[in-house]
């Protein structure tokens, strides 16, 4: 189905957060810390205040009032301590963007710097074991005896993979526009992946009752997790608007986004696998080393994939964190599963070579009956089907496994495979369906960040009501609507759709209105392992002259329950795979060990794939019937597309060249390295 908001998006009428009209609007521009650790000694705003158009400067010299229990990344200007380079230490509010930005450059900040530590390593003395990893998984698990399993294996691999800092880089920079009314109520147009959650976070930060705050996010220009938690711009706009008693707008620059809107933690992952002579796993161990900040604990669930993927009697997974003088990592598309499956699926490829087995066959042989850790039955699992279908479509049976032997001129050609997985969750949600002018109005505080939520929910509601989609109008992106969970964790459609179906069912019974809250329904969900699976196949060409890698074919086959809408689903899968290609070959934000903070804070240096990179990307799926998920029978699809892509490409690079690169991204420098 074509997107219901397609017309406003192609005509330029879709309104994003910074774009709402506002009379007498002022502009805020932040001042950022230039040390990685220490204290602000003094902030001199005298010069800035004399510049044209300047209305106010906010800083720790006169801290704005916020709640004492506010999230430390959002409690702006409350403390003199600097936790990372780039942290907001002040902000200028002025009548125009140009004046605000010029005045911000004139704010003088004196620091008392301390020595900083921004480098993650697997032997860092500060490594510790967090109590849980996101979003509540056990930090470590163990069953059987990994050492014994490895000792009895016919083949083993013991390999370490590294992934760099990655930035979500949605195309729309984080922005907010805040208005206070005469009664002290706050309206924020925010770039949020969930209006309900953003309202709660802003209200908590400012110490306001949630009903005095409204957040509107009707169109969001991508997020990929970066807008899943409230970011400083929303709070800054509210504080600045309160200070100058005018509406205040702030749109972060691309550079600032790198500093304060989250990123994927770098990881160091050691994977040990043993297999018997038939290729059946005798042991699997996956340990992930990651970073967090001194402000907050963010423990990415990188090693949890081993708990889901393959049958083995001996299984250990573990996570270790270190607190560094960095901004807090946050969600980026398939947090945990994405970097974790890069390591696990690369290691499985290494095992296949070590054992002399086909990598598709190796995975098929180790497909488990029940979830390997914990033993829960799967609600449905079609990894084997995806592998077989992908192999058939890709022409896998014609593949000679020998690495480094296919050449077209200077170009070495290789193919690789990797599996994908992502949990299928849902969260409590409310929705209301009413009859309006003979048609149907469905309201839910969902978010459409490009996933097609508006369209998918229109289709789901139309199905539940038994009417044509053009008779359904879905309203979302507003915290005044029935409360809804975030567009994240691939659970948006499952969560919102459940509530929408129940509201529509109620409307059919009532004839006028249906209200739903799925809290109780979800409590009754059976205890099952619910996951989507997939298989990705890549063909790469690697220049033996330059080390350049080009992806000539990328195929994803997914099993993700009932696909609500084929057109939207294909786009989601392709988008995830394209981002995965970036992770494999080009994306990386280097950390500045000397000065702290990130180097490469723009899109000329942080490369994401361009149109010419994504030439032959294809996604298909197997239709699954799974009644244990939600009324739609759907599994989320926003994230699984990026899971496994980097491993499939890395495995193809090995097949092409015979050289295994174990640190992403796989750049010409790393391809050429063994030739020195």
């Amino acid at each position, binding site marked *: 189905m074509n997107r219901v908001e397609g017309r406003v998006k192609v005509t330029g009428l879709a309104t994003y957060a910074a774009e709402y009209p506002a009379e007498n609007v002022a502009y805020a521009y932040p001042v950022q810390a230039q040390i990685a650790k220490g204290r602000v000694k003094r902030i001199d705003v005298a010069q800035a205040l004399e510049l044209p158009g300047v209305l106010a400067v906010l800083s720790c010299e006169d801290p704005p009032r916020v709640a004492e229990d506010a999230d430390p990344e959002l409690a702006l200007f409350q403390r003199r301590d600097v936790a990372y380079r780039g942290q907001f230490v002040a902000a200028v509010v002025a009548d125009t963007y140009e004046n605000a930005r*010029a005045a911000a450059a004139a704010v003088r900040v004196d620091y008392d710097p301390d020595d900083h530590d921004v480098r993650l390593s697997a032997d860092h003395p500060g490594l510790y074991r967090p109590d849980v990893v996101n979003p509540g998984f056990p930090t470590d698990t163990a069953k059987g005896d990994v050492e014994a399993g490895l000792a009895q294996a016919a083949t083993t691999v013991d390999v370490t993979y590294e992934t760099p800092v990655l930035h979500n880089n949605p195309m729309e920079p984080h922005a907010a526009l805040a208005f206070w009314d005469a009664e002290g109520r706050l309206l924020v147009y925010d770039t949020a992946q969930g209006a309900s959650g953003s309202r709660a976070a802003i209200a908590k930060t400012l110490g306001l009752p949630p009903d005095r705050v409204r957040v509107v996010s009707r169109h969001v220009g991508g997020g990929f997790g970066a807008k899943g938690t409230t970011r400083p711009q929303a709070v800054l706009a509210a504080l600045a608007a309160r200070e100058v008693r005018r509406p205040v707008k702030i749109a972060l620059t691309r550079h600032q986004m790198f500093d304060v809107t989250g990123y994927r933690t770098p990881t160091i992952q050691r994977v040990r696998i043993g297999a018997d002579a038939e290729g059946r796993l005798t042991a699997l161990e996956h340990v992930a080393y990651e970073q967090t900040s001194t402000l907050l604990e963010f423990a990415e669930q990188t090693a949890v994939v081993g708990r889901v993927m393959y049958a083995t009697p001996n299984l250990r997974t573990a996570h270790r964190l270190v607190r560094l003088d960095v901004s807090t990592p946050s969600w980026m598309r398939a947090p945990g599963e994405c970097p974790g499956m890069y390591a696990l699926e690369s290691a499985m490829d290494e095992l296949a070579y070590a054992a002399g087995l086909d990598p598709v066959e190796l995975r098929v042989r180790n497909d488990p009956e029940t979830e390997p850790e914990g033993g829960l039955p799967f609600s449905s699992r079609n990894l084997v089907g995806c592998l077989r279908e992908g192999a058939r479509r890709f022409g896998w049976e014609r593949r000679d496994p020998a690495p480094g032997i296919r050449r077209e001129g200077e170009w070495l050609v290789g193919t690789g495979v990797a599996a994908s997985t992502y949990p299928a969750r849902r969260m409590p949600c409310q929705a209301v369906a009413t009859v309006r002018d003979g048609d149907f109005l469905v309201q839910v505080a969902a978010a459409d960040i490009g996933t097609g939520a508006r369209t998918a929910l229109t289709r789901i509601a139309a199905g539940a009501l038994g009417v044509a989609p053009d008779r359904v109008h879905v309203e979302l992106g507003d915290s005044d609507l029935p409360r809804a969970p975030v567009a994240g964790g691939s659970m948006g459609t499952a969560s919102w759709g459940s509530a929408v179906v129940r509201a529509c069912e109620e409307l059919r019974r009532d004839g006028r209105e249906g209200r739903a809250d799925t809290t109780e329904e979800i409590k009754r969900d059976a205890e099952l392992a619910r996951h989507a699976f997939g298989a990705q196949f890549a063909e790469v060409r690697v220049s033996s*002259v330059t080390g*350049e890698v*080009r992806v000539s074919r990328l195929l994803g086959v997914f099993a993700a329950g009932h696909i609500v809408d084929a057109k939207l689903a294909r786009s989601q899968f392709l988008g995830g795979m394209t981002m995965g290609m970036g992770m494999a070959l*080009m994306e990386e934000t280097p950390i500045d060990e000397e000065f702290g903070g990130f180097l490469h804070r723009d899109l000329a240096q942080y490369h994401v794939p*361009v149109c010419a990179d994504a030439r032959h990307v294809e996604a298909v799926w197997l239709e699954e019937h799974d009644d244990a998920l939600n009324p739609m029978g759907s599994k989320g699809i926003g994230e699984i597309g990026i899971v496994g892509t980097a491993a499939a490409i890395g495995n193809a690079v090995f097949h092409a060249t015979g050289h295994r690169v174990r640190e992403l991204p796989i750049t010409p420098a790393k391809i050429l390295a063994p030739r*020195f």
Partner: protein
Amino acid sequence: MKPFEYARATGPAEAVRDYTPGTMYLGGGTNLVDLMKLGVAEPDRLLDVSRLPLDGIEEARDRVRVGATVRNTDLAAHPLIRARYPMLARAVLTGASGQVRNVATVAGNLLQRTRCTYFQDVTRPCNKRRPGSGCPAIAGDHANLAILGASDACVATHPSDLAVALAALDAEVHVTGPGGDRIVPMPGLHRLPGHEPERDTVLAPGDLITGVELPPPPPGASLYRKVRERASFAFALVSIAAVLDVAADGTVADCRIALGGVAHVPWRAERAERALIGGPATGEAFLQAAEAELEQAAPLPRNAYKVPLARNLIVATLEELAP
């Protein structure tokens, strides 16, 4: 961005006459406006030269004169350039994006500044931006910086593709300035950093590039090739502009090699050229020539890959050009 005055120049001579310290000439703005937003460039006054009548591409006997304000797109699309200087057209087409090429001028392309991380960030030291403040790139982020001709003060690279092709073609840059008109032969426009990395070129304050003159295309076959990890819209890790003319007896009659992404200047590989001319046009000779050139390389830990990359690129390009 610091406030500034804006004025449009009425002619090249008038622009030079109007020049005062603190003035910068504005061409297409695709780099200057970018640097002004970053606070790297802080002119008091912009003198817009982009509409000066220097936008022609004309044949003058066996040479071609390209005006300074010719947009990159128009340069690459011009029949004379495509037919006679395909290497130049290719170099331009690999640069930036369609949007940027539509606006960026020939002179501005040559005068664009390095994309070194530290140069572009006013909160970190950089000798090029703030002489004497230090060069953190040497111990830090230099993966895409220079392996040839760098100094203790600066390891920046020049980012232009166009300049690399012009260096291989022995193009002449026409300059007018307070000291009168003069011609600067390529690759002599740009200079090595030495102890004055703040100076990218040999131009003096107030100098204005009015055009570029292309001598007759050298005999032989030519190629421009650019290496980057993304398929398009990226600066070169290393690039090469090469011309090779092989005589009937199989010896190299003439050879021009210029490298991009390896130095503060478009690097004319003169040692390699000298090693090749008069000798056999064989893969072995190409390798020896490349190695002779790269003996001078002084790579840093994270850009050492550029040495084998440049070597491979020279060899593969010459092999492709050899009959």
